[in-house]
Structure formats: C-alpha cells, structure tokens
C-alpha cells in the first residue's frame, strides 16, 4: 500500500474539516452587505388590516386607524409624524415623484414621536373625531376642532367646499414622516406620507 494514493482524499477531508471548524467565523465575515436603507410608513384600518378605512365621516363619531413604521435604516431612528388636516385646495405633501418632495406648508396639529430600533416595527393606534357644521349659505363644511387620542386640536378657520364632480365634502387627514438628523439636531421631512381621504357627511 502506498499512502500517496490517498493524498487527494486526505486533502479533501482536511479541507472540509477546516471549513467546518471555521464556519462560525465565515458566517460573520462573509455577510452580504446591506445596500438599501429606508423606512416603511403605513396606515391600517380598525381591524389592523388594509381595509375598512374610515371614509364617510359623521360629526362627533369616533374612528380608529393604526399608524405603522418599519425601520430599515441600519440604526435606531427617531421619527416624528406630523398630523395635518387640509381641504382639497390647501397645500399637500409630495412623495416618490420626480418633482421636489416637500411637506405640506400647513402647520402640524399634533406630533407623534417614535423611536424605532433597526429592523423593528412600531405600531400606534389613533382615534379621531371631527366637530364641524354645514354652512348652508356658503354651501361648505366649516370645521371647529378634531379630537385625536382624547386631545382636542383646533381646526378653526378650516373649511371645505362642495366637490361638484363627486358630490362630496372632502377633507384629508395627512401623516407626514419626519426623521431626526443627529448631526444637525433637527427633524427633516423623510419624503413620504400617508393620508386618509374623508367625506364629511352632513346628515
């Protein structure tokens, strides 16, 4: 018997054994680098599903939605969600378009802050109701205030006109995502938002 006949087999056995022993190190060193860093923002209906969103709104009636954030930025992020309410003619935010992505110029009614660890999800229930009245003379809906999570937010001065195409009084409840920049210590619009288009019924 010549041991050199088994040289290849021996080399393979030693190499495989070495790779097996080195696998914990290899699993840490040979990691595909993350290349996409982004934030998810979503809104869900009252059953935590993407359905049954409130649309036909009655005065004083309470509605619930769930706001969610998924952080894939690679670090624990500090977000602020600015809640705004606007009619069809007021400034709207933009996102994912070719144009400049800008927030609505309207003042924020309420800020929801969220600190979300990397690769984690944050979920927040929001209950809201509106107080408004129909102005027959001007044929418009005039808002007084809205209640969000038992906080009264002033909507005085906001009104919405009759949409002749759809025969509805529309209002938009908008949630803009702002991200805290640690180096400048300010929040910056993260170029994304979600909104609820609401029909203010006057029955």
């Amino acid at each position, binding site marked *: 018997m010549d041991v050199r006949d088994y040289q290849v087999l021996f080399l393979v056995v030693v190499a495989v054994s070495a790779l097996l022993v*080195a696998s914990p190190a290899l699993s840490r060193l040979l990691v595909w680098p993350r290349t996409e860093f982004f934030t998810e923002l979503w809104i869900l209906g009252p059953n935590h599903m993407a359905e049954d969103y409130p649309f036909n709104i009655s005065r004083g009636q309470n509605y619930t939605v769930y706001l969610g954030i998924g952080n894939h930025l690679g*670090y*624990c992020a500090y977000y602020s969600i600015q809640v705004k309410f606007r009619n069809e003619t007021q400034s709207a935010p933009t996102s994912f378009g070719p144009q400049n992505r800008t927030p609505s110029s309207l003042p924020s009614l309420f800020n929801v802050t*969220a600190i979300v*660890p990397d690769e984690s999800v944050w979920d927040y229930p929001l209950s809201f109701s509106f107080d408004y009245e129909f102005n027959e003379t001007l044929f418009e809906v005039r808002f007084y205030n809205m209640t969000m999570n038992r*906080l009264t937010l002033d909507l005085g001065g906001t009104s919405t006109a009759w949409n002749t195409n759809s025969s509805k009084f529309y209002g938009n409840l908008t949630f803009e995502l702002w991200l805290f920049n640690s180096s400048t210590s300010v929040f910056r619009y993260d170029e994304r938002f979600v909104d609820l288009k609401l029909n203010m019924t006057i029955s």
Partner: protein
Amino acid sequence: MGLRGLLRGFLLLTVVVLVLMLSVAAMPVRVFAVATADEARAAVDGAQAQIITCYGAVVEAEGAGGNVTELAGVLNEAGVLLSRARVALENGEYDLAVEFSSSCTGMLVGFTDRAVTLRDSAARERSLDFLVNVDGSIVGAVAVVVAGWILWVHLKRKYGQAGSAV
C-alpha cells in the same frame, strides 16, 4: 347684645381672618403658581432636549450590539407626554404643558445610565462572542490544517516507505 359681645365677635373674626391668612401663606407656592408661556416653552424644550440626549445614548447602546427595544419603549412613552405638552402649549394651557414636560423628564431620570450599562455589557458580550466564534474558529481551522499536515507527514514516513519497499 352689648358692647362686650360686639368686641368678642370682632376679636373672633380677626382671629379667624389671621388664621386663614397664615394658612394661605404657609401653603406651597406651586399650588398658586401659574406658568407663563415662556416657562412652559422652556419646560417643553427641556423635555425635548432630554429625549434627544437619551436617544443618543440608545443609538450608542444599539451600535454596541445591545437590544434597545425596552429602552425605545420608555422613550416612546416619554414622547407621548411631550406631544401632549406641545398641544397644551399651543392651546395656551401652560400649567398643563409644564406638568406634562415634568412627567416626561421624570420618566427619563437614570435613563442614560441604563443605556450606558446596556452599551457596556453589549460591548463585553460582543467581544467575548468575537473571541469564541471568530478568533476561536480561525485558530481551530489552522489547527486542523497543521494537524492534518503533521499526520500526513507521519503517515508518509510510516507507510510511504513501506509501500515503496514492497
């Protein structure tokens, strides 16, 4: 009722008024304190600054490999209070704004210490994990190769020569 009765009544009334005045003066000042807009704004800004400091500590702890879910939860609760303080400030309810801001900062007492402790323990664990899994397995792999080579040389000496002699 004579003059003596009137005098007694007057004295009694004076004593009651004096006692009332003294008790009012002895009450804690904050019961009657009415926060101004500037005070409320300062309280809200202070709470915001506190949250930012704590957030920085959480980022460091996460960077060291710590699980910051619990700490983030506390910060989110503090954030809710800060949001309420802001709304109160906007509505001109300055006392309420100060109260919410105080609750917010109160909730964060000792927070940075907890974050620093988590950061340090996570750094230690990461270092140990690196030592065992990365350094250990690389050394192990080298040992397997060296042992294989020694074994091969030994086998070659023992059976290689015998084989060639046959």
